[in-house]
């Protein structure tokens, strides 16, 4: 081959190998980048007064006095929003008005009976009230302003009627008057359309500002507070100002999403000024401030991870991993010690090594099956424990999973102790056992510790073995070793695909995964640094 071609191929090859490594770094950044960026938002973000209220109620954090001041400040701006909606609503939401007339009628009837009015007079007054109620209902339901005016005037005639004044029925008249006033600017034919849109607007305002101060507290925690994060509030604001509709531009083609300004939709009505008002004053209604929510790592979460943090998950992961380490450390170190110190190359030792390698190769889900079949259904009940998934079963399964890693790392560490140390100690007359315990082991300990930390990081990230042996997605803190627990790994899986509420709070989804990755990377970095130091120390000899 011509030399120049050989040179070109050589350079091209070098370039190719370089690109593969660059590709790897690129891939790493792509995988970690978006997750870390979005996950960081779970801890560092702009919170609102609703968030501070929630923190005070659920976690007893914050200054009640200053919060009260902020609340009143926010309330003063929010009042206008509620008032605007209410005045508009009275012209539109006739169902509520109709229900109210029914209630008034019933109450009036009760009052009459209480006063002791009976017989014919009772019938007369009652039927008059019924007539008024029916006329009012007709007025509420009709779309024709003429008919409405007719009915309302008819009702208002009886205003000064002595039997009705100062009773519950007097409210009929205030209702009629208010109604007349509120329908002044409204195109009644559009009522149906307004009603649908109005419902959406009310829903968004509810999510933004929380329940009205006069309303009873909703049953679910997630409904009790408005937008707790400023970015969420911005998204809701956008939804408030623009409604999205899917319209068909061409037949047989997918529908296209268009945005319609809601202010235009409600043009000319009492509701129109609401939108620009909210847009301009949202920050005064929510009082956003930057926040470093480090308590994310210790807080419990409300059901669905809507509020709160990942404290129990971190605790669960730590429990499982530390317990697994407890089981595997003595087993691993002793096995490694035997393999290095006492083993000769006979068939038994070869079988042992083969089995260690086999263990290393078993898929993690098969460990899960084994954990289920052996630990949950056989081993723990053998000692009288309950036959259900629990922390003990999970940590035993994880211990078996990580045994080969531990043995290999310990073996490597013990072997790397220089022979001269051992010979010196033996030369001084110490027994082999003593040499090992007092000389070899302390020198090998940093290396063994590196192995421990690497095992820890591997075990913390495992999900498949704990799926059926001890992990739950939602549940209380474990009370004993025989309870299941939440963990970061299983929680991340569940929150990514399984939980509907969590889909509404993506920062929590990413937050949990990033916490897990962060934990594991920290452990790995410590191990790497430790190994480098040990390597340097031993190489120096």
């Amino acid at each position, binding site marked *: 081959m011509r030399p120049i071609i050989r040179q070109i191929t050589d350079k091209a090859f070098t370039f190719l190998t370089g690109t593969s490594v660059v590709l790897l770094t690129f891939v790493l950044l792509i995988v970690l980048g978006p997750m870390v960026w979005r996950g960081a938002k779970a801890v560092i973000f702009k919170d609102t007064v609703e968030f501070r209220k929630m923190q005070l109620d659920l976690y007893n954090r914050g200054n009640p006095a200053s919060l009260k001041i902020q609340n009143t400040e926010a309330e003063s701006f929010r009042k206008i929003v509620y008032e605007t909606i209410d005045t508009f609503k009275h012209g539109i939401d006739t169902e509520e008005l109709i229900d109210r007339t029914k209630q008034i009628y019933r109450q009036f009837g009760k009052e009459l009976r209480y006063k002791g009015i009976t017989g014919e007079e009772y019938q007369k007054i009652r039927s008059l009230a019924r007539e008024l109620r029916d006329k009012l209902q007709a007025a509420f339901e009709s779309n024709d302003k003429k008919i409405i005016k007719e009915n309302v005037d008819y009702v208002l005639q009886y205003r000064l009627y002595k039997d009705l004044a100062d009773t519950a029925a007097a409210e009929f008249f205030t209702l009629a008057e208010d109604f007349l006033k509120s329908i002044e600017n409204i195109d009644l034919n559009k009522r149906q359309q307004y009603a649908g849109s109005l419902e959406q607007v009310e829903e968004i305002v509810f999510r933004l500002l929380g329940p009205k101060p006069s309303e009873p507290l909703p049953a679910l925690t997630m409904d009790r507070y408005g937008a707790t994060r400023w970015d969420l509030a911005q998204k809701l604001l956008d939804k408030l100002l623009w409604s999205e509709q*899917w319209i068909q531009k061409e037949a047989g083609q*997918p*529908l296209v999403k268009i945005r319609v300004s809601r202010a235009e939709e409600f043009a000319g009505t009492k509701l129109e000024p609401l939108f620009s008002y909210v847009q301009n004053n949202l920050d005064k209604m929510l009082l956003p401030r930057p926040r470093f929510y480090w308590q994310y790592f210790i807080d419990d979460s409300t059901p669905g991870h809507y509020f709160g943090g990942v404290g129990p998950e971190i605790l669960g992961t730590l*429990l499982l991993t*530390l317990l697994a380490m407890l089981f595997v450390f003595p087993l691993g170190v002793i096995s490694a010690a035997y393999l290095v110190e006492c083993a000769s190359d006979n068939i038994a030792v070869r079988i042992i090594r083969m089995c260690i390698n086999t263990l290393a190769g078993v898929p993690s889900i098969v460990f899960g099956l084994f954990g289920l079949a052996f630990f949950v259904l056989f081993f723990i009940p053998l000692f009288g424990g309950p036959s259900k998934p629990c922390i003990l079963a999970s940590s035993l399964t994880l211990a078996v999973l990580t045994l080969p890693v531990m043995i290999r790392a310990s073996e490597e560490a013990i072997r790397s102790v220089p022979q001269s140390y051992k010979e010196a100690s033996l030369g001084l007359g110490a027994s082999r056992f003593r040499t090992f315990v007092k000389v070899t082991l302390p020198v090998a300990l940093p290396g063994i510790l590196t192995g421990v930390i690497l095992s820890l990081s591997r075990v913390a990230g495992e999900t498949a073995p704990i799926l059926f042996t001890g992990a739950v*997605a939602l*549940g209380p803190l474990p*009370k004993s070793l025989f309870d299941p627990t939440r963990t970061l790994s299983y929680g991340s899986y569940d929150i990514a695909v399984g939980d*509907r509420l969590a*889909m509404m709070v993506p920062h929590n989804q990413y937050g949990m995964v990033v916490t897990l990755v962060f934990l594991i990377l920290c452990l790995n970095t410590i191990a790497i640094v430790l190994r480098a130091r040990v390597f340097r120390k031993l190489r120096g000899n």
Partner: protein
Amino acid sequence: MKRIIVCGLIMLGLVLASEMIAAEKQALQIDGSTTVGPIADAFAEAFMSNYPDLEITVKKTGSGDGAAALVDGRCDIAIMSRFMKEKEFKKAVENGIFPVAHVVAMDGVCAVVHPSNPVTQLSTSRIRDIYKGKITNWKEVGGPDSPIVVISRDTSSGTYETFHGLVMNKEEMGSKVEYVNSNPQAHARVKTTVGAIGYVGIGFLDANVKALKINGILPSRQTITTGQYPVARPLFMFTNGYPKLGSMTYKFCTFYLTETGQEIIEAKGFVPVTNY
């Protein structure tokens, strides 16, 4: 180094000890369907705020698992989106468990598509053909020219059972059907995939997916309670025998009759059994 290990062990010991010292709380174990899951979660939340000593655990891994847990005695209440099968019932009776069903809400299994899909209604036979793989492109049913991505729940799910029974007429689904493990996952798949069709419980409908009319009927509160909607079903809570009056299990199973319970069921998008 040794000191670090010793400290770690002491910390572990303290953590374990502290948990065992914690007071004995009353516990209620609930297992089962992902459809009824949100209702059970919300009930549990309301309960735990009223009774701080009560600990309720809700596991949502599917109706089948809920039934199995009740039969094994591992849970107090099994939430299921279908009635117990014959073999589950038999096994329960063999184990001395006598399942009693409480209907807490009504649900409709809704066929959903991406909001950009112009198709608004399909008949049950069309849906059946789509799921069997006979119809593979949206243009065959009046939509745009794009392949259909068929999403189904896994075969152990109660939602799957209802769909399989009432829409598929118990025929097998085609081989290209993608399986997901829960209602929220099905919802997420349809929300993000333009050519997808899936089915979810009515509690999972929102602005991100579009519900189709099946045989001309749109799923709504009214059409489900009157039975007009063809794929309506009750949602159950099963207990071992009728729960003792006044016990926590009893209160939980009858919570749907209270006004708060009805509010919660409606807030979650399901259809309350009573009209309050």
